């Protein structure tokens, strides 16, 4: 379940107030993979952060399942002075998963080896991204939030990531932001268009892509 109820969100920058969402109510369709599209600066990432609960709406409410992921590719939740393993253990406990099973999975998947015993602050950004991705795959989310799939790791890691993720999508859904129309076509079957503080829903992904291309061309 993912739902916006009368959500208002705006930003004030240098005295200019920018409305991202203007009293929007929208229930994300259950079990479908939803694309979020819009021009640059329309507020797609802000919408994602609202859905994830990292930001609070100015008014209204965001309802979400306890098994909605954090925005993937986002590794801001790691504590730098704790080791990779400690961070993994923390998140596994938080989501009530079998800690050892999650650790095994992450070890196998990320190939980080002994680095897992080192504090996160010693990691390169690539290592952090691999850990974050591996961890989100180890936990049974039923909805994944993805803000632009960014490729991490070498070719074999990317292939493996894609395989695992496709497998996850057989029993979980996804809400995704992407500028790449081919990625959107690959993963999503419906979507919303964000424009001037309003959300427009398209139950057929091709309709959304048409509107998006019109907007970009105009």
């Amino acid at each position: 379940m993912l739902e916006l109820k009368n959500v208002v969100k705006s930003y004030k920058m240098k005295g200019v107030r920018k409305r991202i969402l203007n009293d929007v109510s929208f229930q994300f369709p259950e079990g479908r993979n939803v694309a979020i599209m819009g021009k640059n600066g329309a507020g797609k990432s802000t919408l994602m952060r609202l859905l994830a609960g990292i930001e609070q709406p100015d008014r209204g409410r965001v309802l979400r399942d306890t098994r909605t992921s954090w925005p993937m590719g986002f590794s801001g939740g790691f504590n730098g002075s704790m080791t990779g393993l400690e961070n993994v253990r923390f998140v596994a406990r938080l989501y009530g998963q079998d800690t050892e099973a999650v650790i095994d999975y992450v070890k196998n998947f990320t190939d980080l080896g002994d680095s897992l015993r080192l504090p996160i602050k010693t990691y390169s950004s690539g290592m952090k991204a691999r850990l974050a991705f591996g961890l989100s795959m180890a936990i049974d989310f039923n909805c994944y939030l993805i803000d632009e799939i960014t490729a991490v790791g070498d070719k074999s890691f990317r292939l493996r990531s894609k395989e695992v993720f496709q497998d996850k999508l057989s029993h979980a859904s996804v809400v995704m932001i992407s500028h790449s129309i081919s990625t959107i076509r690959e993963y999503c079957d419906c979507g919303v268009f964000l424009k001037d503080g309003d959300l427009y829903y398209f139950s057929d992904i091709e309709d959304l892509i048409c509107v998006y291309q019109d907007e970009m061309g105009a």
Partner: protein
Amino acid sequence: MSMTSGLNLIALQMRVVATLVLRETRASFGTSSIGYLWAVITPAVSVGLLFFIFTMIDRQAPYGDSLALFFATGILTIEFFNKLSHTLMATFDANKALLTYPLIKETDALFARLILISATYLVIMVLFYLCLYAAGMADLPAHPEKTLAAFLAIMALGFGFGIVNAVIASLWESWNQIEKILTRPLIFISGVFYVPSRLPSQATDILWWNPVVHLVEWVREGFYPNYNSSVFTPEYPLFLAMILILVGLGSERLFRKRRN
């Protein structure tokens, strides 16, 4: 909301808080057991130092036979209270990164710190008083139930002050420094070195308003068989604690959006 989903939510909340307690333990004491040992040693050194100074100048215990026990009842109480109040004040700053995980609310971090610090001080106090007992410098508490009630009262008041501090500090950064200055004289006005009941009434009339005096007196009422404090009013710190906790949690909710 159905009954089962309500129970599930409570179970979820307990799991989140328990997870945070483990994380906080790791963050405050490090990975080695030495870290935890320090937490026990630090207050022991304060009591030891006072004991040493007062023995050197050949002073009698203000009450009872044991100088060490008398000071311990005052110092450990104040340290526990201060630790809660100070550590909770820093909660919102220290835990920003945790809000990435939507399961965690800031109040969970407050509860986690309350639990960790209280458990730590329970261990510190039991160890410390047992050592005094073993060294023949103290008797076991004459009224154990009162001592336990006193511990819970310190917990409640420290929690109340801590949340309110946390909310003020999140809105006004200077509060971190101001609070430290304001609580500095606590050790002098809370009856650590003297028996409040024996002060002239002009003094006790003012001291009475310091809630921590009542906590120190509460602990002593528990330890000594006939302490009979004339200052001690248990309702005052409890009432204050309740108000502060309600105001603190209420304003946390009210100002949550302003913080992030």
